[in-house]
């Protein structure tokens, strides 16, 4: 049934759009406090070295230097996001006994100006004893490899095994099997706003306030509590506007811990802003990995078994890498029914900055491998790429034993719509052109509770005042994806009022109910449910009062819409929302009306309460002389349930395609013995706006019963299919097969030559 809404589903400009485009919106980057000091880190030049001594005496003499901290000044222990498994909480504020990657902070200076802080770190003398390092996962696990962390033998940080069905029997039944090996290279996060924090400690009350560019104020509050040995409640984290996170701002990082420690030491506010080089060499990125993939199919294209082996280059710490490892195994099975599946994965510590969840959360690398392999198998079997996908996709209610269950599921209608549209849009391809496909699915927030929170996954509080205005409090994080707008839209729709009636108070741990933050495309479904519940409580009070005043039969339904509460079948019988609110507050002993809401998924398997899904096609032209790939157009059919804000959803899709094209074509992090060779935006190549192909987006709306107003994921899903769809377009055009991402011209030429040689050999 198609539902009609007043606000939901209408393309809506962001509530903070005007402030952002005029420069009025305040990011942490823009903030300063009276008497503020500036912090700067001294970083390790070694990938692996023991720290023998640190002499700060010369730096301390420099005029304007107010405090210097080293590892010895850190009161707390280690921290991490895997608080459920303390051995994986391996992060430290400042290196104490040894450094584990080039760029790891060893000391931090607070000074009256940025220049003085920079001069001061040059005066700190650190004596190191260099140690041999490990830089590749297959080297890291060797018995004689140097250990990154002494307690982790063979540098194994985490392992994952997923299995269902009987894989060996499945392969035995297959008419066709194929094995491919891939190397997936890492990808930088490259947010517009770098990591930065402003900390202010009040020595009287012993309370700390931190403003930070974070994806999760709650995670930061917990990380700071562990690092500083303080109570969570004595730390207030405020997230101002954030210029992008993409997974790189979930962990508590030294910008916050050092700013806090220096503020505690000096009693003055301290601000730390990483420069772009620091951002590249010392903050988290997408995981690099070796992938071995085997698929078994029947002659007709039905998948009977898949086996996947993964070993990842985790870097020096855990971050959310252990979760990404699991999801790399899960999302490559989507959106297919694979009856027999086995996944073995190992995450290694290496002497590099560490890898974590980045947009697509583990899905992006392995979906690239799996979708590339599927097209090769389809070609060998003489089956059309869309047909082979249609033959294997899930239907509503599909369950992967012990792992996940899929309720709303529009993948088949998506492919059918794609089949129809593609014939109209791209009826034929010219020489050296090809169309590639990739199906996709992604979570609407994760069920996993690695952080071990006792709170609901998301909370919201709604207060309705005497004049009908609404104050909406929630810790959910808008990091540029538009969740502030989605929050207000959901609240306004539920109460039947206008967005202009609502004032949003987001992301402040002192005043808002906990939300786990913006990751895994979770805010719309999880926080949306909490807001809808909180607003719904108030709506119920207003409806009950209106019903009593009308003296109507209890069976008659009332609705809250267009700022009125009225009988659904006789709209003329009702009241103004504002009048009812005034009466309700008078009857409430003069207290404003308060509604509270929360959401935690239950009985939804191990992964997510719901899955967005769809199919992507990319048309590309390949220059066979120089190996250049030109993406000419992108066509996407997306099932994201009921769209809350189609304009915001479109922005998310465009951003994902942009980052996915970079992953496929040019974003590369070459590393020489732990040294990143391109730590600047000059040398790290992202796709420019003018090189972006046109994107056509269609939807197949389903209704997701678990989501607010039927909504589910409408954010990250489209990054993972972008690289394989483009690689498959090149494969269709030239027969070139790739065993890695970053398809630079020389790699493309080599693959084309190999494909031509293979073809000649067959003849």
């Amino acid at each position, binding site marked *: 049934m198609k539902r009609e809404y007043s606000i939901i589903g209408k393309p809506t400009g962001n509530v903070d759009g005007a402030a952002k485009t005029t420069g009025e919106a305040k990011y942490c980057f823009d903030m300063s406090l009276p008497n503020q000091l500036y912090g700067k880190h001294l970083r390790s030049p070694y990938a692996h070295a023991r720290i023998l001594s640190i002499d700060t005496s010369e730096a301390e003499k420099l005029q304007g230097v107010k405090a210097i901290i080293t590892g010895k000044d850190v009161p707390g222990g280690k921290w991490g996001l895997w608080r459920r498994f303390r051995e994986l909480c391996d992060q430290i504020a400042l290196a104490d006994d040894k450094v584990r990657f080039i760029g790891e902070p060893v000391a931090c200076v607070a000074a009256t100006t940025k220049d003085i802080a920079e001069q001061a770190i040059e005066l700190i003398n650190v004596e190191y004893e260099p140690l041999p390092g490990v830089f590749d996962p*297959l080297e890291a*696990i*060797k*018995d004689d*490899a140097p250990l990154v962390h002494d*307690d*982790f*033998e*063979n540098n*194994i*940080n*985490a*392992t994952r*095994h997923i299995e269902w069905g009987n894989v060996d029997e499945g392969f035995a039944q297959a008419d066709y099997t194929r*094995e491919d*090996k891939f190397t997936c290279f890492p990808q930088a996060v490259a947010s517009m706003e770098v990591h930065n924090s402003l900390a202010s400690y009040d020595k009287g009350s012993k309370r700390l306030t931190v403003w930070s560019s974070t994806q999760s104020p709650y995670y930061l509050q917990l990380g700071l509590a562990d690092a500083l040995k303080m109570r969570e409640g004595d730390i207030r984290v405020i997230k101002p506007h954030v210029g992008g996170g993409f997974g790189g701002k979930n962990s508590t990082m030294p910008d916050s811990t050092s700013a806090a420690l220096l503020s505690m030491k000096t009693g003055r506010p301290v601000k730390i802003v990483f420069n772009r080089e620091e951002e590249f060499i010392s903050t988290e990125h997408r995981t690099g990995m*070796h992938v*071995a993939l*085997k698929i078994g199919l029947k002659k007709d294209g039905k998948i009977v078994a898949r*086996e996947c*082996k*993964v*070993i990842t280059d985790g870097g020096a710490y855990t971050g959310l890498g252990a979760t990404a490892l699991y999801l790399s195994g899960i999302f490559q099975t989507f959106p297919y029914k694979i009856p027999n599946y086995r996944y*073995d*994965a*190992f995450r290694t510590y290496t002497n590099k900055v560490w890898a974590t969840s980045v947009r697509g959360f583990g899905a992006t690398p392995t979906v690239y491998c799996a979708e590339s392999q599927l097209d090769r198998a389809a070609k060998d079997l003489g089956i059309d790429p869309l047909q082979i996908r249609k033959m294997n996709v899930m239907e509503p209610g599909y369950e992967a034993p012990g792992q996940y269950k899929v309720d709303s599921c529009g993948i088949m209608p998506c492919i059918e719509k794609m089949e129809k549209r593609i014939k109209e849009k791209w009826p034929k391809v010219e020489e050296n052109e090809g169309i590639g496909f990739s199906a996709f699915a992604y979570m609407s927030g994760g069920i996993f509770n690695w952080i071990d929170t006792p709170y609901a996954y998301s909370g919201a509080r709604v207060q309705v005042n005497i004049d009908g205005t609404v104050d909406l409090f929630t810790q959910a994080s808008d990091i540029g994806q538009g969740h502030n707008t989605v929050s207000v839209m959901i609240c306004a729709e539920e109460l039947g009022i206008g967005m202009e009636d609502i004032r949003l108070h987001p992301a402040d741990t002192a005043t808002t109910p906990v939300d786990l933050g913006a990751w895994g495309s979770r805010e719309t479904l999880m926080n949306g449910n909490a807001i809808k519940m909180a607003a719904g409580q108030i709506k119920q009070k207003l409806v009950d009062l209106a019903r009593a005043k009308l003296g109507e039969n209890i069976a008659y339904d009332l609705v809250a819409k267009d700022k009125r509460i009225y009988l659904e079948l006789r709209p003329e019988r009702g009241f103004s929302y504002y009048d009812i609110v005034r009466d309700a507050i008078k009857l409430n002993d003069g207290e404003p009306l308060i509604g509270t809401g929360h959401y935690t998924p239950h009985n939804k398997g191990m992964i997510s309460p719901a899955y967005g899904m769809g199919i992507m096609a990319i048309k590309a032209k390949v220059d066979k002389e120089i190996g250049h790939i030109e993406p000419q157009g992108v066509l996407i059919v997306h099932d994201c349930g009921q769209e809350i804000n189609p304009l915001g959803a479109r922005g998310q899709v465009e951003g994902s395609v942009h980052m996915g094209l970079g992953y496929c074509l040019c974003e590369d992090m070459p590393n020489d013995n732990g040294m990143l060779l391109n730590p600047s935006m000059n040398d790290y190549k992202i796709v420019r706006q003018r090189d972006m192909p046109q994107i056509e987006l269609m939807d197949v709306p389903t209704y997701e019963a678990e989501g607010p107003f039927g909504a589910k994921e409408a954010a990250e899903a489209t990054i993972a299919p972008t690289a394989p769809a483009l690689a498959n377009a090149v494969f269709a055009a030239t027969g070139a097969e790739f065993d890695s991402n970053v398809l630079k011209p020389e790699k493309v030429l080599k693959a084309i030559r190999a494909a031509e040689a293979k073809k000649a050999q067959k003849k």
Partner: protein
Amino acid sequence: MATWYKCPVCRKLSREHHDLARHYLGQTNKEHKDWLKKVGLSYAELITMQVTEFGNKGYDALAEVLKKEAQEVEVDVK
């Protein structure tokens, strides 16, 4: 009652030696690694076989050793 097999290092019980091998190579602590050295196996070699070659060569090799080494336990599986 059924015969299950006990991990030589921790209390984990598995129905099959192969499953026990899978458990074993999933452990990251020193105790599990040390026992491997004692029976003359290399964790690195087993993992390398397991992740770089198709099939279950790493698990298979360890399962062969566990057939001799893992204690049998009668388990009430009702």
